């Protein structure tokens, strides 16, 4: 019961934080709020018994993502968002509300939260729960599936991260060869001085 109450309150906090993120025009504040958002979600993962996910979310979501965004903020020197009036909020709001209502209609058939007889919990999950320890010798079922049963998937994941890392290095690593007339002339002048 207490789990459920904590769950409901934290989810409400999460919704409030999300609204605060999109309402703020200061990008630094948005990023800090996003860090809070990730930390709250890590706490919620603990409440829902997903300990490994909570660790990862706290380290990667609240840690690395926030640092990456702050670095981008520093590199782009753009601290305030410009709200143009060209974007009509009503049109996008209408799209979002209609999509949301269709999705809510879709949830009416989903088995309730925490239902042990839900189809998602009946089939292959039971196999892993019963056989993970005898077959792999790892008591943590999540680790057993990730590293043993689905080891090749994890290898593929490493390939994805490697590709992303290489792409980021290619995008940011080299010096920009063509000085662009659109950017600040002071920067170009400094760049030319550096090259000579």
């Amino acid at each position, binding site marked *: 019961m207490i789990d459920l109450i904590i769950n409901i309150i934290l989810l409400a906090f*999460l*919704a409030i934080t*999300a609204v605060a993120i999109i309402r703020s025009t200061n990008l630094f504040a948005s990023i800090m709020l996003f860090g809070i958002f990730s930390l709250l979600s890590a706490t919620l993962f603990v409440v829902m018994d997903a300990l490994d*996910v909570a660790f990862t979310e706290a380290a990667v979501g609240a840690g690395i993502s926030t640092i990456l965004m702050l670095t981008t903020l520093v590199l782009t020197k753009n601290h305030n968002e410009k709200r143009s009036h060209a974007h009509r909020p009503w049109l996008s709001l209408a799209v979002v509300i209609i*999509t949301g209502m269709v999705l809510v209609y879709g949830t009416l058939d989903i088995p309730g939260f925490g239902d042990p007889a839900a189809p998602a919990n009946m089939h292959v999950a039971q196999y892993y729960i019963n056989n993970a320890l005898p077959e792999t010798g790892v008591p943590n079922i999540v680790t057993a599936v990730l590293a043993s049963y689905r080891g090749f998937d994890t290898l593929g994941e490493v390939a994805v991260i490697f590709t992303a890392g290489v792409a980021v290095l290619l995008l940011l690593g080299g010096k920009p060869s063509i000085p662009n007339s659109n*950017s600040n002339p002071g920067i170009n002048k400094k760049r030319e001085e550096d090259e000579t």
Partner: protein
Amino acid sequence: MDFFISHYNYWIVIFLMMVGLYTVINRGNLIKKIIGLNIFQVSVFFLYISMGAVKDGAAPIITEGVKLYSNPLPHVLILTAIVVGVATTALGLALVVRIKESYGTIEEDEIHEMDHSL
């Protein structure tokens, strides 16, 4: 009331998803758009983890005397998704830095104007 409590998670998930979608559609700033994408992503994580949760179930680590465990499969999927998500975020942010270098702005409207005036 029971129905409300048992579906509350999914409705908050949908709310977060729509907040993220709205940010991506409506906000012109590219960093803000990426934050919106991340909110959307976290909402999908919650959808999966909520489906895997079992009432009075323990965390899926085999312990003596525990009969009922949460479903470990959504946890595995989301673990992968979080790590891949941060890789795509890093790539998106690198593109933002690059756009700033060549256009001098990260506001979508101004980038469109420059593209049309070329």
